[in-house]
């Protein structure tokens, strides 16, 4: 994969100027070799290197060993994992010489013998002594690699392209449309006609708040014939507090959010993060406030460094972005790696952690850049106690909390003292017991913090160490194999030539500034792509967390740049970005199929129609509850149980996420894996999704509630009942054939339904907490149960209930089109 020979001729032609340039650099590195020196090299050195070294240390190698290339002068001087191969003029300090001499048992080359003849070794020594004259510049393949990696679109400076000219200027409402239309016209395609108003308001409402519009909202929109009717809808939705719950969840996917720690030694450590939810709430709030995205980034990396956080400690919760990751059995290097991963994939769309053990295989990210960022995060630590962010301490509840917490602290101190004592004595049995007691003490602290109504919320902050330090490169990721120390600084590829070392403490704030800097074009591109993806089902770049060289070309590169540039101009406002996109004709197209177009562009990359999208689990569950009138709109707060009966009827975003044991219903519906930043969820179709819709009491109870509604009961006839259900569930009236199907179904129902097949009736089936699931709602106490629904009896369904249930199962309720 390292060798793309077939593209070389073309690349070579393009590179001619660059070739000269590189040659100039090489020459400037040392004195020009004399002709006789070059002759010596060609006759005595080059053949030796080719015959004995190139197999493992050149561009011809199947796999380059030790990161060492011996086929260029640069390669020799730069060296491999263990340092430069030669020190010009100094054979005694040149690893290459040491290796071929076979005097060091750990460094012998060629590795499996035979040893090079003494005469050859002597030649090599003389050659190094004379300054290792070497005419070999980078090989063509290497240059092709570096050059094409330099010209990769994603890190080119951001310009704002002018919208192209189009033929059908009537369709193009916004500049966005012109970019889309130009591409369509290139292929001789026309965009679909606009979606009808019902479809449109449904699409916009699900997109922005993750819920269906109410029949009244639909009615109002239909009646509003003013030209800005849709604009008003979009603005209303953007102002809804539910907006943050929808888009905050998209961000939590990227932030690999979880309420638990993942890999910990459970015998010794409680796996709960009692305050992760304060980060979740910060995210929801930030989206609702339309916090400028650059500020959103800065806060999540370095809120503790901002003066504003002194006034508003709630901002400190932003640091949860860094701290809610897996704990990896407390392996610090892995924790740091996870933080580098979430920062670089999340904000920059780059897989920087690939460079932990070797230079990135595809992107120009050397290992030393990874360790530049590593130094930032290894200069930070979590404080022993998370800071309290709400200062309303007082009252009887608080006294109760305070006393309990103090008692636990005291118990902890006693146990720790005892532990030290026992360690001295070496009493293993008692030691084990005390450790167990300590662990239980920890769980009680976690549970108290997570459930006591007066437990003050705290922020999961990260703080700088008093003495921040640069990190050495860890060769091949091995902590015991330290290479050169590298300064804390930003990635070279995104620095635009200006790359000062980070000096402000750990450098988190410097890093944040570099990420949002004008010099760095990738940050707005990545964000714009994410937003577009959630509106259209697919981004311009189909791999939202990887804009590197392995990513496919963007479908609309100019539009991506235009939007990114506009986004910066508009003060990094995500809400303005939504408006710009949604008020364009391309957003408002219908999803109707066109068989001919589907042949030409089966994936709809050119956007000749709207994509049909399945609702994510959150939107599906929330909309079912909303349709049944059962949704509890309470915002914010500690996590709730959405998994077992009686179900919480809060929005799904408030459900507890346990990364070590994700609720099955979430897994079945392709929930984002909280162990990795996830910009795009899987989209699978499996029987368990059907089982949820067919059999879950949560779903069936909504059908029953619908039919119990006074509005339904007041309907005078079958037709109006069916109409009511359609309006409520699908936001449209039924078609005649649908009315016919409905009435036939209801009419032919058995007269007295029986519950024949189940012994489990009238018994909740999923609230048994098994012993091996320690972190679950059994322990969340009254707080976890707050906002829960009530247990309902499993009364057999009446024919209308069964019909309503069928409507909830049908595809139309699970898809946006």
């Amino acid at each position: 994969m390292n060798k793309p020979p077939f593209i070389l001729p073309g690349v070579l032609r393009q590179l001619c100027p660059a070739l000269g340039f590189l040659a100039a650099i090489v020459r400037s590195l040392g004195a020009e070799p004399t002709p006789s020196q070059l002759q010596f090299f060609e006759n005595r050195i080059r053949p030796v290197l080719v015959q004995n070294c190139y197999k493992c240390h050149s561009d011809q190698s199947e796999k380059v060993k030790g990161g060492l290339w011996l086929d260029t002068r640069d390669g020799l001087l730069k060296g491999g994992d263990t340092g430069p191969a030669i020190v010009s003029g100094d054979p005694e300090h040149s690893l290459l010489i040491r290796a071929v001499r076979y005097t060091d048992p750990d460094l012998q080359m060629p590795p499996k013998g035979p040893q090079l003849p003494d005469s050859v070794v002597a030649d090599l020594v003389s050659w190094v002594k004379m300054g290792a004259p070497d005419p070999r510049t980078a090989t063509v393949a290497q240059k092709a690699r570096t050059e094409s990696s330099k010209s990769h679109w994603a890190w080119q400076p951001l310009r704002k392209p002018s919208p192209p000219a189009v033929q059908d200027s009537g369709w193009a409402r916004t500049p966005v449309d012109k970019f889309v239309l130009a591409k369509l016209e290139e292929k001789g395609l026309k965009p679909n006609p606009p979606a009808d108003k019902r479809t449109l308001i449904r699409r916009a409402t699900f997109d922005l708040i993750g819920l269906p519009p109410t029949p009244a909202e639909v009615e109002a929109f239909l009646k509003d014939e003013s030209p800005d009717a849709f604009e008003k809808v979009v603005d209303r939705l953007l102002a809804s507090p539910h907006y943050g719950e929808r888009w905050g969840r998209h961000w939590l996917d990227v932030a690999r959010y979880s309420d638990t720690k993942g890999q910990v030694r459970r015998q010794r450590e409680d796996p709960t993060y009692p305050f992760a939810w304060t980060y979740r709430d910060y995210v929801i709030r930030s989206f609702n406030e339309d916090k400028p995205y650059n500020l959103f980034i800065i806060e999540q990396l370095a809120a503790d460094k901002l003066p504003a956080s002194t006034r508003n400690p709630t901002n400190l919760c932003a640091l949860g972005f860094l701290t809610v990751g897996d704990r990896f059995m407390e392996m610090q290097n892995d924790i740091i790696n996870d933080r580098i991963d979430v920062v670089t994939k999340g904000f920059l769309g780059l897989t920087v952690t690939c460079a932990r053990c070797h230079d990135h295989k595809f992107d120009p990210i050397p290992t030393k850049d990874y360790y530049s960022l590593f130094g930032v995060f290894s200069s930070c630590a979590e404080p022993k106690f998370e800071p309290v962010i709400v200062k309303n301490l007082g009252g009887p509840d608080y006294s109760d909390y305070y006393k309990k917490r103090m008692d636990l602290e005291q118990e902890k101190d006693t146990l720790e003292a005892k532990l030290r004592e026992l360690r001295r004595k070496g009493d293993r049995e008692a030691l084990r017991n005390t450790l167990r007691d300590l662990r239980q003490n920890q769980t009680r602290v976690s549970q108290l913090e997570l459930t006591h109504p007066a437990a003050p919320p705290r922020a999961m902050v990260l703080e700088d160490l008093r003495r921040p330090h640069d990190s050495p490169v860890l060769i091949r990721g091995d902590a015991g194999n330290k290479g050169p120390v590298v300064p804390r600084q930003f990635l070279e590829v995104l620095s635009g030539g200006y790359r000062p070392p980070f000096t402000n403490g750990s450098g988190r704030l410097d890093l944040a500034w570099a990420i949002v800097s004008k010099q760095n074009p990738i940050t707005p591109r990545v964000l714009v792509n994410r937003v577009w993806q959630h509106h259209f089902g697919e981004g311009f770049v189909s791999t939202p967390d990887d804009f590197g060289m392995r990513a496919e070309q963007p479908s609309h590169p100019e539009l991506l740049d235009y939007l990114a540039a506009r986004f910066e101009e508009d003060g990094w406002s995500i809400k303005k970005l939504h408006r710009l996109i949604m008020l364009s004709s391309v957003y408002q197209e219908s999803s109707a199929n066109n068989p001919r177009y589907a042949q030409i562009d089966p994936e709809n990359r050119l956007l000749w129609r709207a994509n049909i999208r399945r609702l994510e689990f959150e939107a599906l569950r929330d909309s079912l509850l909303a349709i049944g009138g059962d949704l509890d709109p309470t915002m914010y707060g500690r996590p709730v149980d959405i998994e077992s009966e009686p179900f919480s009827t809060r929005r799904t975003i408030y459900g507890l996420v346990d990364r070590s044991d994700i609720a099955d219903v979430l897994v079945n519906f392709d929930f984002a894996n909280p162990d990795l930043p996830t910009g795009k969820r899987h989209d699978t179709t499996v029987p368990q999704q059907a089982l949820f819709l067919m059999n879950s009491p949560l779903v069936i109870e909504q059908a029953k509630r619908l039919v119990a509604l006074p509005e339904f009961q007041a309907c005078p006839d079958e037709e109006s009942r069916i109409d009511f259900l359609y309006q409520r569930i699908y936001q449209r009236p039924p078609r005649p054939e649908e009315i016919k199907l409905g009435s036939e179904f209801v009419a032919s129902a058995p007269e007295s339904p029986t519950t024949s097949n189940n012994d489990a009736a009238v018994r909740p089936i999923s609230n048994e907490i098994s012993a091996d699931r320690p972190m679950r709602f059994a322990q969340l106490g009254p707080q976890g149960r707050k906002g829960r629904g009530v247990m309902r009896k499993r009364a057999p369904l009446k024919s209308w209930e069964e019909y309503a249930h069928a409507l909830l199962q049908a595809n139309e309720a699970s898809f946006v089109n």
Partner: protein
Amino acid sequence: MGSDNKYIRDHSPRLEDLFVTRRQFLQRTGMGLGMLGLATLLGEEFLGSKVAAEEIATLAPKAPPLPAKAKHVVHIFAQGAPSHVDTWDPKPALAQYDGKPIPGMDGLAMASPFKFEKKGKSGIEVSEVFPKLGELVDDLTVIRSMYTDIPAHEVATVFMNTGSTRFSRPSLGSWVLYGLGTENQNMPGFISLRPGGTPPGGSSNWQASFLPGLYQGVSINTKAPGVNQIIGNIRNQYTPLDEQRRQLDLVHQLNELHSQNLQKDAQLEARLQAFEMAFKMQTEATDAFDLRKEPDAMRDMYGRTPQGNQMLIARRLIERGVRFVQVWAGGWDHHQDIEERLPERAKEIDQPLAAFINDLKQRNLFDSTLVIWGGEFGRKPVKDRNGNDNPGRDHNAKAFTTVLAGGGVRGGSVYGATDEFGAAAVENKVHIHDLHATILALLGFDHTKLTYRYNGRDFRLTDVAGQVVTPVLA
């Protein structure tokens, strides 16, 4: 409509009856969108009709093109990368060099803390951490020369299951299901069992990718306490089965009307199949996953542990004709404390897997079931310097061991070898693509010919690589 319902009401809800209504539904709706999917549901009945069989994605059982013994696969995924030099690949040289540098390598050698002993007639050496599997060594083929591309868990895990490190590709189980269909039309043909949590790579490991959705693996969390929790919502507590059938027919009709204005979308098609499979699973799967139906002695033989339960479920699934069962048995990422933690992991699977093999033999299923145990890569022979005082081993893509047993596999044999220290496979090296080619060969496929056309190209599990390792075939 009315008469159909009467028909159902007058009969007990046997599945055959339900299929009759499916066919009637087809006729009524003029075979619109649902045709292909419904044809699939009708499976064998429908193939005789004028619709060309090869155009239809189907779960109906098919004979492989070549003779083969193995008909089912159980892939036990030892995720986390088990250390081969502590389990199946003894390296006495490590004891000699213990604590000293190994020539040509970074780091200090670490002797295996475990003893190896010759077992069975074949005298293959097995680590003491697998006492029960050791007894069965004459049934096993131990491939000691496995290697892979990238020593990172998620990438390598997905690679082992899909043959791709970069792109979304169908999983091994999906390919097998596509090639062979499945014997039980009331159960998913490809089931993935996990004891809680999700493995790295999640559903990529059992995905159908561009293969039709019905070849997707169905992931089941076996940690739940009872069958009603193992498959969430498997029972409807409100509506009797015959009534539910009538309701589901209505749902299909509603979907048909709904989709008339939309594209004939593969996802909608897959949904129809998912609902039908869900309906059938309500009766069949409840039974398959209900371990209370096993005698006590059997449960004790497997061990009443998460892995014991998983292997027993796997046997119940194989018995019911499920084509491919993936069993997640991970936790092998031992960077530290290997002496303490590796035996725990080994113990988890030793008894259940041995019981499973013995049980298959007793039921005459061993010869028709290919059993695979292995991880995504191996570990280094040196101490992991990131570890603490109780050392472990770091990742190693150049060497690991995979064990095969059952259908068509030559038992009691070792294939390939690593170097003196177990640092790299050197003799008869077997790449992931080679393993995949071999698995397909054991099932009766030429891996270069099991292809699926997508985006104008014929794709296969082994991409453009893969050599069948013939010596491991019996």
